[in-house]
């Protein structure tokens, strides 16, 4: 029979033991990554279906509003969406409203283009994809795009070359935000709200969002009100998207660590509560015995 002292000692467990346990259960699946079959959530399915239905020649803006601290959750989404668009002839503009997103978008675009070229898909720089520079101002940038994209972004980069924006063939199709078929905002801050308020509400552009898991609940009301066409949430959203694309990647390979990390934390919470109630019951018994005495 486990005594109350055991539970009290367990509640005072050194936090470094907890740290080591968490590190171990998350690290081990990285060595032998599983390939689970995931239940696709409706918000993820909506994003996938919307892009899948876009005709070739449509232009999608992929906005990298995150930095390295959110890359493990949002990079897999970016790679999957870039791959889906470029393989089906949908043109992609990558941009960012976040100063740390500048390198993230360039890295992601160049990496996916290089992978596709190795697979025989050869997207044309400046016609199938274009990289627009970072501009500060958040709402100012979104509002400006609603009037004249060329004025907001004076230059564009593709295939290692930077030129005035009007010289790129892709930008012949895009003069205002209304010329975009979809804006996908991958964000670790509240930029999707800005895109919805200043883009969707004002200029009628369709917006989808990929956000970190911390923020996903904040955007469910926008899903329900149909201000967002779909929503990808965290690493699981990325893994679901990879499953739909039938191209497992970083999202899918992280699900093993997710599973065991979650189960360990659930165990911590349960054990912590059992110990709490056991201690409380013992304290009440002791108080009752003291009263009688």
């Amino acid at each position, binding site marked *: 029979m486990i005594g109350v002292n055991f539970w009290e000692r367990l509640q005072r467990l050194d*936090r*470094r033991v907890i*740290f080591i346990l*968490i*590190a171990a259960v*998350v*690290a081990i699946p*990285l*060595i032998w990554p599983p390939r689970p079959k995931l239940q696709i959530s409706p918000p993820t399915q909506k994003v996938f279906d919307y892009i899948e239905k876009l005709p070739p020649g449509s232009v999608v803006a992929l906005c990298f509003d995150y930095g390295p*601290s959110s*890359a*493990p*959750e949002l*990079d897999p989404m970016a790679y999957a969406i870039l791959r889906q668009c470029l393989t089906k002839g949908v043109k992609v503009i990558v941009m960012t409203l976040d*100063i*740390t997103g*500048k390198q993230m978008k360039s*890295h992601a675009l*160049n*990496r996916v283009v290089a992978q596709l070229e190795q697979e025989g898909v050869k997207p044309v720089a400046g016609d199938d994809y274009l990289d627009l*520079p*970072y*501009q*500060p101002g958040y*709402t100012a940038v979104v*509002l400006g795009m609603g009037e004249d994209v060329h004025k907001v972004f*004076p*230059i564009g980069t593709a295939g290692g070359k930077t030129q*005035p*924006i*009007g*010289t790129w063939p892709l930008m012949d199709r895009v003069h205002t935000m209304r010329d975009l078929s979809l804006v996908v905002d991958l964000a670790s801050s509240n930029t999707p709200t800005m895109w*919805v*308020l*200043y883009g*969707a*509400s*004002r200029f009628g552009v369709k917006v989808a969002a990929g956000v*970190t*898991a*911390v923020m*996903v*609940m904040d955007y469910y*009301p926008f899903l*329900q*009100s*149909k*201000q967002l066409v779909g929503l990808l*949430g*965290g*690493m*699981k959203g990325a893994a679901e998207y990879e499953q739909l694309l039938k191209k497992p990647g*970083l999202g899918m*390979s*992280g699900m093993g*660590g*997710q599973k065991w*990390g*979650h189960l360990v*934390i659930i165990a911590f919470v349960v054990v912590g509560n059992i110990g709490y109630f056991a201690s409380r019951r013992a304290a009440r018994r002791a108080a009752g015995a003291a009263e009688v005495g």
Partner: protein
Amino acid sequence: MPPAPPAQAFGPEATIIGIWIGALLTLAIYSFLYRDNPIYKLAEHVFVGVSAGYYVGVTFWDTVVPKVWQPLFDPFAVGRDRPDLLVIPPALLGLLIFTRFFPRASWLARMPICFVIGAGAGAAIPAAVQGLVMKHVSSTMLPLYVHDDTHKTVAAGLVGGAQNLLLIVGVISVLCYFYFSKPHKGVLGAGARFGIWLLMVAFGATFGNTVMARISLLIGRLRFLHEDWGPMVGLGPQMARGPSAQPWRFAVAGLLLLALFGVLAWHERRTGGRPTSTETEE
């Protein structure tokens, strides 16, 4: 995640050096999990300096040069045939920001701040009304019996209606909770009570998602250490296939870890095991 291409200015060895630096900085930050120590402080200050320098570099080339310098002094570079003089007023307003360092003229620094705040506030009002208030209130007006392609039977229609009712009553209840102009008694009190329960469900859902987010970040770093740095020290993905053919790499990893523990132990002896100001007692 595969490593980024090497810096062209330095050659391919730059990638190897870069991965080593990234790994050592990662381990330096993680040393904080044991306790605050000089290695962590060093990495922390490197982060402060590098991130500030990053912001300056990016802003210079992506805003100052194409939006201010080139439109005025090199208009052909931005597709114009003559200088854009309308860039001068905001540039002057921006320069006024620096008057805050001169006490007698510091009031001028308010101009650009007021311009930005005023413009932002003016843009926010119609956006908030249209995109947040009106849209979300109208989206809460839902039918109590649903009949569409996904709700074809009476039972399904009633279930859909019940869910809609939960949403309607839930939104009103939460707004009741946040209404502090009257005491929470009677109907308002009951509504506020239900609102608290729904808020607890929402916060629980947020916590559940937060766990996923934090573990994702940890997976990202461990993946870097395992896949990018690991092969350099014999601890990479090849581990799953059997013992390393170059056991000296294990030795390098072991020596590094010993060095890290040595510094931590020295710091522990020096401070006598006392918690520093950045640590909290649990």
